[in-house]
């Protein structure tokens, strides 16, 4: 495990135990059950280092936003959480990603099983060229969840706030939907198989503001049921939806060229109101990026 000691200029801040409003008005510590425990993770594409020494815990049933300028490894990081980077042949990961205590990259891990438990919605909506119903029903059918399929599809579409708009045309082609509807369909698809975690890689960046707003509302309703990690370029979006925020920026690397890394991770209010690292402060106050 590559440790922080090799990179003195990178500062890892944990601004104290995470808290929530307590029953009697004070604040109490949240049970920090983490879904992901990331230790010293660096990602390489061939010899090029894309991400450097990330240490992070992602808590259960909360929304964690990953913000930061382009090219700092946010997408690479999130895709490493469900083994989607495997398809890139030059991909190499150092360090450890623990999911509920299990090493995600151990030899005996089945990556298909990983993706069944950790779902992902992509930046550009990518519905299948099938009907709306079949889009949502496809994965459950694969998994053998054929009983109550209609109910499952309806539940997923309701959960994605799409049911009312499509309930009369479930057999229509999904490609006929608007961009925002297609993205909500992709979310419905993902939640239809009841994953443990939802990874959202810039889910609204390809959508217009109205569609974006509907996606953000959706995230609020999904919050308690799933652990959500969302990558976003939009700081206001992070401030609106996320419980915790992690800022990825460029940290100096021993190779000379700056490489993306985790700069600071804390409660959203802290990151935006009172960040500890000057680089975080610069970014959230709009001085760069």
């Amino acid at each position, binding site marked *: 495990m590559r440790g922080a000691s090799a990179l003195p200029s990178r500062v890892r801040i944990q601004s104290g135990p995470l808290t929530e409003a307590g029953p009697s008005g004070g604040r109490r510590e949240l049970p920090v059950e983490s879904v992901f425990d990331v230790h010293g993770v660096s990602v390489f594409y061939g010899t090029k280092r894309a991400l450097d020494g990330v240490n992070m815990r992602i808590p259960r049933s909360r929304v964690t936003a990953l913000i930061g300028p382009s090219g700092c490894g946010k997408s690479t990081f999130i895709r490493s959480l469900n083994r989607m980077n495997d398809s890139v042949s030059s991909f190499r990961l150092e360090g450890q990603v623990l999911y509920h205590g299990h090493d995600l990259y151990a030899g005996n891990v089945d990556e298909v099983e990983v993706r069944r438990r950790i779902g992902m919605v992509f930046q550009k909506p990518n519905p299948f060229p099938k009907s709306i119903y079949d889009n949502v029903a496809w994965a459950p059918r694969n998994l053998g969840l054929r009983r109550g399929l209609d109910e499952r599809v309806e539940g997923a579409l309701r959960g994605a706030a799409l049911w009312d708009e499509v309930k009369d045309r479930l057999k229509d082609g999904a490609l006929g939907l608007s961009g925002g509807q297609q993205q909500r369909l*992709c979310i419905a698809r993902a939640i239809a198989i009841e994953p443990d975690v939802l990874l959202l890689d810039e889910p609204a960046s390809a959508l217009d503001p109205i569609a974006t707003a509907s996606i953000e509302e959706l995230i609020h309703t999904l919050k308690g049921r799933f652990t959500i990690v969302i990558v976003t370029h939009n700081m206001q979006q992070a401030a609106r939806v996320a419980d915790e925020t992690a800022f990825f920026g460029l940290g100096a690397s021993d190779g000379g060229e700056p490489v993306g890394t985790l700069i600071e991770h804390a409660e959203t209010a802290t990151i935006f109101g009172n960040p500890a690292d000057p680089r975080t402060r610069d970014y959230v106050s709009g001085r760069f990026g």
Partner: protein
Amino acid sequence: MSSATSPAAPGAARPAARRSRDWRRTFDRFGDGALYGVCALAVAIAVGALALSAYQVFDHASPAISKFGLGFLTSAEWQPNFDVYGAGTLLYGTLVSSFFALLIGGPIAISIGLYLSLLAPKGVRGVVSPLVEMLAAIPSVILGFWGLILLAPFVQQHVEPFLHDNFGFIPLFGAPQTTGASVFTASLILTIMVIPIIASISRDLFLAVPRDVQDGASALGATRWEVVRGIVLPTTAPGVIAASLLGLGRALGEAIAVSQLIGAGEKIDVSLFETGDTLAARIANQFPGAITEMHKASLYYCAAILLAIVLASNLGAQWIGRRFDYRRMAE
């Protein structure tokens, strides 16, 4: 390029320069017209040759068409000595051997296309893809000769007895011939010819399926085969069908290799291991030696039937291919 005129006397030079410019403009306009004319002529020659070929075939077949009519397609009586001709055996052999090649070669070719597009590492793809295409470059006379000397004996001594002994209850697998020249052997060679065509086109179709849709499927916990079965194949199905029709056209029209391997049989037989004949092979076999007018006309008639079938298959492929393209472009 215009003639040199001294700038010191512009008044005197202008008419000369203008003349040369005018001449050049006319020359260019003539040149443009000539280019168009020459190109249009080339197009006319190409299209005209094709149209003329169809006309010639049907025209020279007309004596046989008027004598035998459509019964020519079902009658299996081919007796040059009596000037009685019927292409039933040939039509049967053509369809059986070509569909065999498509039935066996099609799935193999599609799996090759899947391998080259989705499974093979880039380096392997770079080597194996050209190799598969090279298979299409082998001349049919060489493939037929190889089949005659090496494949046919092997098939006759090992494959046909094996199939007959174990599956002989199916009428397709009758008793093996003595020579190995059979519909079966010819069909095997046609299979080899059909595979590279379907495989190359399928490979390109599969490669064109957008990456993000496949990623979306993988992200839902689907296995590779499920992504292929649920996304890749349905999306490319029309194109693969069009490719298969192109392959079918190739098999239907193959004359040389088939004539070397099919044994020039005269009867229609259910068993694949008997000899048979196809329209194309019979033309290749008997055309050079045909003497009577009716014999020749009947062979032209065979060519006409073959042309009709191949055109139907190829035009079907083009139609499906074009419709498929428009559909994808509309996304």
